[in-house]
């Protein structure tokens, strides 16, 4: 997020929520958005489904799944032609405006409304509401990124913020809501093939030299492969060994049968986890680690806020601290790694990572106990950065880049006539490894289901609560129909938490060409009565 939750809740005049259902996926942000709305902040919801917050919204644009880029380009075009662009900001802080303006011209309100399946009037109202606000914030989530055109969607949305000068000031910005608790931190820490910690590039010789010096070994200089691309590489035999730390791709990754085949093709497979997950059952070695309540460390939340994780209890006997396990493996493989505590590891991170340069457990336990530290936090006296890009964009000025609108990789056809989207529900988390072990969560939400529009269900003779068969080109599951107008006709939605009727037997492993995120939000399915 460029801005902070408090800042948006207190200062935004308009919040535009795109492809995000915070009441279920980020519930406390959901509460805080309700708080903003009750203060008088306007709310624009851009989402195919009638999510809870849609009832509190001033405008709900039920765009067709997979048409975010068209929507955003259309907004930018409208903002410019309605005279709502912030000329000074565009002049002083951005580049490439003219080219962008020419590129979005073809995204007329009529064309966009038709493409996205929304009313022209609503699109115009949304542009006016967003464009006339003094402080307008965009919040978005996986509904934008989990598409083959996810990166394009983010770029196109950024243009909306940039063209109206809604960056680098209170109550505004581009604010991705990061899904899992430490997605932000894991990326920050260099768990990506191109990046050392702090997004320092693996291919930059100066950066590599710095890490080689501190770590005392020569480092590989070739470009690594992203996780979602590793599965095909396993089938091809290019990747033969996998060390999997605390994930359950058999349940959470798209196209389960493909994942199973890929893992089976490995020569050697290690899983480190708390439980014998579906994936761990396939491993050659399983190593029992420790959970967040058994260690000292930090998480970085969606606001870039680094906060402490503190040890509350000892781990079960027989398990070991994850850092201890890695240290053992490193030493046994010939790399001399001293055993370091969580606080000492953070000190090492700070020396190597400019954006984390001022972060230490000591500060987080002291002056920053309640507020944490938001990176960039470059030295021990730096207070952290609640709002990014205040006086200039990091590096250079903000450059407009306008993606073209490309349709989703798999569109409905005669055989598979429905669009399937997937997502989360309030009472569970991902593969339920944690939440599923609390009795109440499963009592409330324990089984898979699929949301179908009332008209479609009527045509198929399916009633609410009926068990039905759902198939895609990749697999078939049985699940329970939830019939309502929450989804539009032709569109359906399933949670991916549940092992019975897991939606990932159906989903499509088509990837975004930049981020390699799978297109969880759009695939084509058919629905049948059981016999």
């Amino acid at each position, binding site marked *: 997020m460029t801005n902070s939750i*408090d800042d948006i809740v207190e200062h935004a005049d308009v919040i535009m929520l795109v492809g995000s259902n915070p009441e279920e*996926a980020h*519930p406390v942000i959901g*509460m805080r958005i*309700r708080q903003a709305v009750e203060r008088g902040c306007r709310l624009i919801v851009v989402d195919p489904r009638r999510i809870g917050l849609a009832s509190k919204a001033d405008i709900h644009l039920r765009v067709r799944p997979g048409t975010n880029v068209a929507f955003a380009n259309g907004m930018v075009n409208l903002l410019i032609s309605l005279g709502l662009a912030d000329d000074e900001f565009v002049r002083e802080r951005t580049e490439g405006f003219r080219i962008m303006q020419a590129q979005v011209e073809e995204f007329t309100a009529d064309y966009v409304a038709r493409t996205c399946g929304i009313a022209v009037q609503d699109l115009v109202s949304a542009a006016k509401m967003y464009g006339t606000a003094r402080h307008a914030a965009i919040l978005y989530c996986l509904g934008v990124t989990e598409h083959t055109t996810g990166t394009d969607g983010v770029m196109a949305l950024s243009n909306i913020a940039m063209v109206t000068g809604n960056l680098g000031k209170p109550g505004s910005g581009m604010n991705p*809501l990061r*899904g*899992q*608790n430490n*997605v932000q931190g*894991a990326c*920050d*820490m260099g*768990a*990506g093939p191109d990046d050392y910690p702090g997004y320092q590039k*693996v291919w930059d010789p100066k950066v590599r030299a710095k890490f080689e010096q501190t*770590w005392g070994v020569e480092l590989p200089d070739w*470009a*690594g492969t*992203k996780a979602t691309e*590793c599965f095909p590489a396993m089938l091809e035999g290019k990747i033969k060994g996998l*060390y999997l*730390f*605390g*994930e359950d*791709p058999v349940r959470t990754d798209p196209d389960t049968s493909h994942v199973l085949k890929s893992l089976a093709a490995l020569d050697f497979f*290690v899983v480190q986890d708390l439980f*014998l997950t579906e994936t761990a059952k396939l*491993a*050659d070695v399983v190593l*029992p680690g420790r959970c967040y*309540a058994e*260690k000292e*460390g930090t998480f970085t939340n*969606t606001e870039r806020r680094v906060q*402490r*994780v503190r040890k509350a*209890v000892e781990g079960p006997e027989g*398990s070991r601290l994850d*850092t201890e396990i*890695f240290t*053992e*493996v490193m030493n*046994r*493989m010939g*790399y001399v*790694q001293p055993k370091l505590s*969580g606080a000492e590891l*953070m000190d090492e*991170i700070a020396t190597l990572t400019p954006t984390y340069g001022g972060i230490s457990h000591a500060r987080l336990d002291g002056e920053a106990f*309640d507020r944490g530290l938001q990176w960039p936090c470059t030295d021990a006296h730096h207070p952290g950065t609640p709002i990014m890009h205040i006086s200039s964009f990091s590096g250079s000025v903000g450059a407009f880049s306008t993606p073209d609108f490309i349709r989703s990789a798999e569109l409905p056809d005669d055989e598979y006539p429905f669009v399937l989207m997937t997502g989360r529900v309030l*009472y569970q988390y*991902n593969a339920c490894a944690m*939440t599923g*072990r*609390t009795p*109440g*969560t499963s009592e*409330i939400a324990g089984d898979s289901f699929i949301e179908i529009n009332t008209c479609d269900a009527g045509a198929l003779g399916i009633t609410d609560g009926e068990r039905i068969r759902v198939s895609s080109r990749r697999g078939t599951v049985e699940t329970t129909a939830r019939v309502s107008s929450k989804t539009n006709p032709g569109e359906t939605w399933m949670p991916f938490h549940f092992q019975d009727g897991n939606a990932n037997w159906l989903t499509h492993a088509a990837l975004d060409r930049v981020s390699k995120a*799978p297109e969880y939000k759009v695939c084509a399915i058919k629905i049948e009565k059981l016999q």
Partner: protein
Amino acid sequence: MHNIAINGEPVIAREGATILEAARKVGVRIPTLCFLKERSGVASCRVCVVEVEGEPYPVPACATPVRDGMEITTDSPKLAAYRKMALELILSSKGAALASLACEEGAEATELSKLCCELGVQVPADVDGTDALPVVEGNPFLSYDPNLCIECQRCVGACNAAARNHSLQSRMRGSHVLIDAPFGADWRATDCESCGNCAQACPTGALSLKSRRRSEAPVETPAGVQDAEARFVRTTCPHCGVGCQLELEVRDGRIVGARGAQGASNRSLLCVKGRSASYDFVSSPDRLTSPLVRSPETGELEPATWDEALDVVASRFTALRDECGGESIAAFACSRSTNEDVYLFQKMARTALRSNNIDSCARV
């Protein structure tokens, strides 16, 4: 700005501030019960009364704005007697269950019990009612026991002014406030999100988490770990990217509860996952307690010592690395684990596995 005096000390207070706010600002404690900052203040309990020079009776500090020249006394024998009486009235307003809260002590005691200790209030001899009202407990996480309710309406503030869910309301019947808690048999039909922020606000345990009752049953505790009373450990919720701050309640080496803490993103709020699903898995009986290695003979995963397992891992990866190159190995980190874990994991991948094929489940 107003110039006032609190217990004889000159204080400058903001225009429109209440006496309570002005006193808290300079570190003077006035006991409160029904008041909840920014969320609730119905000024019904009369525990926060103070004396104001020139006023015939004590006034509630939470609801009385300061005036220029006000002289305030926050502590005196007269006030102590007043507060004690107010609390005794509250304690005896229902049945024996509420009255008995007066004698509970310790870190886990309710706020009402702690206040009774502070003000020296004993279990009242006579109570007005019985404990006959039915407990509302359809919701799997939360219950409401009207027999313990002191009508302070803090829960109403928590649900409506903080969680902004508006599914818990109060209404008047005669001179009594009734709380409509959405936890009855029809709880599924309500908008309640089971977040439990109302229960965290409740000073008596009338609204409470069912898990609390479960945790009072004797449990097997890890050997050698005994806490005289509960400890609270401040940490960060393990579920979603909001990063809510919570306090895990630890008793006898086990986590038995979680409550919201004043973090920058959550302002004391939690959702159902943070409050009720953030710790049961920690002590789940199916946690792995031994490394497992697939046996070449049986083809099954079988328990092994750490030494054996780590040797297998190191030797197999070393062989792959040296024969086929680091390109042949991939390492996937977990976006749920700590920064320190992920940092060392990617360092291991790059320095020991000699691979840049490192990624996280960030896209999932």
